């Protein structure tokens, strides 16, 4: 929480410190998936309005990142991975992060409403609320399923992009949401199996520590199976097509094999080869999500130009 009072501010915070509050690496994924959601929609959007919409979604994601850093300043100061973040390092005061997070949240939602429509703005507002309040303040420290539920916040951007273009929600946008939502747990748990974390010291329940590594391996496979169904299901909607289906089948076989291999292994196997399979599957998961969304973009491009591969 924010009872960390930082008196160690030694130098003036620069723009880079404030930018780091917005979690730029998370913003990259948000921008990419929101852009795909917008571009694959059947309704065209003026390029400038599209640019402003993507900017608003990125700023909204950044604002929720700043609010997350404000709330989690106490545990960020404990964990090695996060100790250099702007608040625990003393570059930015917690109050500043709260102010920036709140201001940018309101700013991004209002501007998105003025530029596009109420549904897109409402979805962005809900995403910020979900990440900052439901995930950061409530679930992150109370359940080992925090990754699963928190993943919903990262799944909304393509749905918002779709809403920007169409003004609605459809089976296509729900399946794009579901693709990221189901992908997040195996992706993060594969990482958790080979990275030594200090979440336990910070009092954050992670599945590897609360239920053990074997249970985590079971969970990875259990989430991968419905993920395959969602990914293939997206291929038979209006935004899918033959190219997407071919890419999806290959990527799903690749990822499913990785998850199955993880499930088959014991911790002793894993230690013996320095977690080679877990590391490989984590890398595959990155290609997996990127590949699916690129394939959706290719299908949209082909539809726009009336190209037919059959």
């Amino acid at each position: 929480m924010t009872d960390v009072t930082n008196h160690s501010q030694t130098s003036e915070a620069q723009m880079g410190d404030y930018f780091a509050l917005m979690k730029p690496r998370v913003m990259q994924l948000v921008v990419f998936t929101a852009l795909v959601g917008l571009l694959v929609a059947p309704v065209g959007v003026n390029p400038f309005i599209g640019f402003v919409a993507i900017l608003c979604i990125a700023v909204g994601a950044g604002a929720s990142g700043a609010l997350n850093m404000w709330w989690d300043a106490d545990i960020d100061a404990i964990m090695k991975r996060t100790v250099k973040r702007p608040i625990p390092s003393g570059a930015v005061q917690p109050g500043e992060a709260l102010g920036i997070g709140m201001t940018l949240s309101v700013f991004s939602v209002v501007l998105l409403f003025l530029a596009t429509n109420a549904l897109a703005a409402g979805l962005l507002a809900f995403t910020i609320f979900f990440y900052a309040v439901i995930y950061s303040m409530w679930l992150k420290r109370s359940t080992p399923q925090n990754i699963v539920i928190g993943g919903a916040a990262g799944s909304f951007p393509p749905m918002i992009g779709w809403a920007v273009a169409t003004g609605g929600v459809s089976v296509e946008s729900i399946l794009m949401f579901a693709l990221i939502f189901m992908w997040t747990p195996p992706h993060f748990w594969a990482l958790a199996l080979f990275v030594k974390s200090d979440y336990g010291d910070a009092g954050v329940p992670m599945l590897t520590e609360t239920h053990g590594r074997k249970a985590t391996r079971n969970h990875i496979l259990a989430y991968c199976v419905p993920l395959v169904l969602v990914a293939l299901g997206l291929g038979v909607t209006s935004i899918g097509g033959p190219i997407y289906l071919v890419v999806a089948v290959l990527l799903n076989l690749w990822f499913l094999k990785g998850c199955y291999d993880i499930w088959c292994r014991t911790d002793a196997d894993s230690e013996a080869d320095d977690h080679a399979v877990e590391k490989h599957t984590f890398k595959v998961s990155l290609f997996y999500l990127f590949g699916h969304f690129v394939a959706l973009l290719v299908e949209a491009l082909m539809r726009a130009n009336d190209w037919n591969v059959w």
Partner: protein
Amino acid sequence: MAFKVEHEIHQRRKGRNSGVGLLLIGLVGIVFGLTVVKVLGLTDVRQMERFDHVARPQLEPGALEAAEQRAADLAAASEAGE
């Protein structure tokens, strides 16, 4: 007349202030661009009046449709009269 640096804080915060300045210029650009795009995208030039912040019931969709219907009825009536 050149601005004189009166305090070291001006120098210390130069980067931040320049950043905020650029962000504000960007915001002005976005608002201007949105205005141009929205106004050029109007299908009916009369709708331009929507942007003067005055309520105009005659420009609501229902009123516009009713006006078009009235015009069509009058045209049909005049044709029938001829």
